[in-house]
C-alpha cells in the first residue's frame, strides 16, 4: 500500500508534442482513482509514467515517500493489468502468475500457495494448467488480474482492462474489480475512456483532456458540480445539453436568456451570478432535468419550453428523445417511456431550473 504523488509532471516527446502538461495529482493510500478522458488525453501516458514504462520529462513522481523518476519499472513494486492482458503466451496460467514471484526468488512451495490462493480468489483454479491461447477473453482478463495480485504490490495499475470484454461480462467484471479493491485495500490507479466505469468504480475520478487535468473529485461531485464545459459534457450519457445564453437582470431576479427561451436562475445562486449580468454564458442542463409535461418529477422548478420531437430511442426503462428548438438548435431529454412521443409533434417540455449550470463562454469554466 502506498500513496502516489504527481508534482508538475510533464511528458514531452522528442518531436515537441506535450502529452501530459503540469500534472499535479495526489492519490491516497488504498484509494481507487480512475483516470478518465477521451483518447489522446494523456491518461495512458500518465499511467505509463507511473509504471516506469515512459520517461518523465520534468516534474517529480513519488510512490510512498520515494521519488521514483529514475527508478526503473522492475524496481517500483507496482503491478499492471494491460488492455491486451499481455499474458506470456508460452507459459501456462500458473507460470504466468508465478513469473514475478520466481524472479523475486520466492521458494517453490510459497509460490504454489500464493498462486493457488490468488487463483481461488478469482475463480480460475481449474485453468492453472492451461495456456493463454486456450482461454476466453474473460478468463484471460482474470489471469491478468491474478498475475498482478499474487505479487501483493504497493500500487495496482490498470489500463482499460475491461475494454476487450463484451458488455455483459464488463458489468460483471466491474463489480468484481470493485470487490477486489475492497478486499485488498491496495491503491488502484485505473485508466479508462468509459465514464460508466469511472462513475461506478472510482473512489475519486480524475478527468483529463488534451494532456491537462481538468478536475479531480468523487464521482457524484464530478457529476453534480463539473468544473468546466468539458467535464460537464464528458461525464454523463447522453451528454449534458448546452445552450448559448446571456445573464439578464429582471424584476423577478436574474435569468438566463437564450434565443428561444428564458430560464430564471435558482434563488440560492442569485448572488453568485450577480456579477455576470449582461455576460455571454453557456447554459448546461442534463437530459434527465428536462421532463415530459405528463410525467414531471415532483419538487422540480419547471419552465415550459416548446420544442419539436425528432428521433426517439426507446431503451425500455427510459426513452432518449431528441428535440429541435425553433432556432434549429437541438437538445436531448431522458423521458418516461410511458410518454408516447411521436416524431414531428410539438410539445412543451419542462426544464428544471434547479439543474442549471452556467459556464463562462470564453474560458468555459464554471461560474
Amino acid at each position, binding site marked *: 500500500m502506498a500513496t502516489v504523488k504527481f508534482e508538475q509532471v510533464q511528458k514531452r516527446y522528442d518531436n515537441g508534442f506535450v502529452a501530459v502538461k503540469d500534472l499535479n495529482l495526489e492519490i491516497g493510500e488504498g484509494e481507487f482513482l480512475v483516470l478518465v478522458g477521451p483518447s489522446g488525453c494523456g491518461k495512458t501516458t500518465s499511467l505509463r509514467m507511473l*509504471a*516506469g*514504462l515512459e520517461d518523465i520529462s520534468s516534474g517529480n513522481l513519488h510512490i510512498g515517500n520515494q521519488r521514483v523518476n529514475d527508478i*526503473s*519499472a*522492475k*524496481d*517500483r513494486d*507496482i*503491478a*499492471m493489468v*494491460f*488492455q*491486451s492482458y*499481455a*499474458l*506470456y*503466451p*508460452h*507459459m501456462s496460467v500458473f507460470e504466468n502468475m508465478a*513469473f*514475478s514471484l520466481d*524472479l*523475486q526468488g520466492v521458494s517453490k512451495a510459497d509460490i504454489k500457495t500464493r498462486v493457488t490462493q490468488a487463483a481461488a480468489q478469482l475463480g480460475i483454479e481449474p485453468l492453472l494448467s492451461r495456456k493463454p491461447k486456450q482461454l476466453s477473453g474473460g478468463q484471460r482478463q482474470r489471469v491478468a488480474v491474478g*498475475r498482478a495480485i499474487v*505479487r501483493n504490490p504497493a500500487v495496482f495499475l490498470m489500463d482499460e482492462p475491461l475494454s476487450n470484454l463484451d458488455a455483459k461480462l464488463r458489468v460483471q467484471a466491474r463489480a468484481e474489480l470493485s470487490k477486489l479493491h475492497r478486499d485488498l485495500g491496495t491503491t488502484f490507479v485505473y485508466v479508462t475512456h468509459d465514464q460508466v466505469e469511472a462513475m461506478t468504480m472510482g473512489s475519486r475520478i480524475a478527468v483529463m483532456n488534451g494532456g491537462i487535468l481538468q478536475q479531480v473529485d468523487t464521482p457524484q461531485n464530478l457529476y453534480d458540480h463539473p468544473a468546466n464545459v468539458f467535464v460537464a459534457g464528458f461525464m454523463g450519457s447522453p451528454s449534458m445539453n448546452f445552450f448559448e445564453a446571456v445573464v439578464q437582470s429582471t424584476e423577478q431576479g436574474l435569468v438566463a436568456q437564450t434565443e428561444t427561451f428564458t430560464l430564471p436562475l435558482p434563488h440560492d445562486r442569485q448572488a453568485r451570478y450577480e456579477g455576470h449580468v449582461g455576460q455571454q454564458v453557456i447554459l448546461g442542463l442534463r437530459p434527465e432535468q428536462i421532463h415530459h409535461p405528463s410525467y414531471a418529477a415532483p419538487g422540480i422548478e419547471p419552465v415550459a419550453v416548446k420544442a419539436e420531437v425528432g428521433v426517439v430511442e426507446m431503451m425500455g426503462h427510459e426513452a432518449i428523445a431528441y428535440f429541435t428548438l425553433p432556432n434549429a438548435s437541438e437538445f436531448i431529454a431522458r423521458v418516461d417511456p410511458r410518454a408516447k412521443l411521436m416524431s414531428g409533434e410539438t410539445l412543451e417540455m419542462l426544464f428544471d431550473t434547479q439543474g442549471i449550470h452556467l459556464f463562462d463562454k470564453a474560458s468555459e469554466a464554471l461560474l
Partner: protein
Amino acid sequence: MQDASNLTRILGAIAAILFGSGGILALFYGANRIVNRFSQTWRDRILPWVYIGPAMVMLTAYLILPTLRTIYLSFLDRGSDKFIGLKNYTFAFTNDAMLTAFRNNLLWLVLVTFISVALGLVIAVLVDRVKYEPLAKGLIFLPMAISFVGASVIWRFVYAYSPPGADQIGLLNAIAVGLGFEPIGWLVNKALNNFALIAIMIWLQTGFCMVLLSSAIKGIPGDVLEAARMDGANELQVFWRITIPMIRSTILVVTTTLTVLVLKVFDIVFVMTGGNLDTDVIASLMIKQMFKFRDFGKGSAIAVVLLLAVIPVMVVNIRRFRQQEVN
C-alpha cells in the same frame, strides 16, 4: 563484335523468358479450354489434376526419377555394369577420406548453425534498439546477395598468403604482419583451414538469420515485454525467458534451413581448397567421386547418404510448417 554477341545473348534471354512464361500460360489456357468441354461432374474431377499435372510431371522427371536412379546406381559398380550390393556404402562409411569429410561436415554443421543463429539473434536484438537500424541490418544482410563462389573469391583475397618478407596482399596476413607476427597460411594449415572455410559460410548466413529473427522479435507484442519488466525482470531475463521462448519456432526454422544448406555445401570448399588438405565435405567428395574419378557407384552412394541425412531435418521443418498453418 563483343557488343553484338552481348546483344544476341540479351535477346536470347528475353526470348527464353517470353517463350517460357508464354508456354506455361498457353499450356494452362489450352488445358482449361479442353476441360471446359466436359460435363460439370467430369470437369470437377479433372480440373485439379490439370492444374497440378505439369508441376507433378516436372517434379517426377527432374526430382523423383533421378533420386530413384541414384539409389539404383549406388548398388552398382563404378561403370554401372554390375550389382555389387552394399560395397559402395561400406566404402562410404569406412574410407579415410570419407571419415574426414564426415568429421568436417559435422564441424560445419555445428559451427555454422550455432554461430550464425547466435550471432543473428544477438545482432537482431541489439539492432532493434538503435536508430540507424536499417543501415546496420543492410550491411549485415549484404553478403546474402553474393553467391557462394563469389564470396569464395572475395575470401581468397582475405586469406591470401605470401612468404615472409614479401608484400602481403591478404587482408588478414597484412594485419598479422603489421602487428609483427609471421604470415599465416590460413588455407594450408590443417588446424585452421576448415575453420577459415566455415567462417565464410557464417559471414554469408548471419544476415539471413538476423533478418528472420529480427522480424520475429518485432512480432512480439511490446506490452508482453513491458509486462515482464513490470514483473521485475531485467533485460537479460526478458531476453531468455520471454523473447527466446516466443521466437522459438522461428529459431527452429532458421536452424533447420541452415542445417540443410550446410549439408549441401560444396562450392566454398571447391573454390577455396578443392577439398585438399583435409577440407573435403560429403558433398565435395561426392562431386569428386562422380566427375573426377568417374565412379558413379560410389558417388551415388554418397549422394544417398547425404539424402538420408537431410530427411529428418526436412521432416522437422515440414511438421513445424504445418503446425504454424494450423495456428
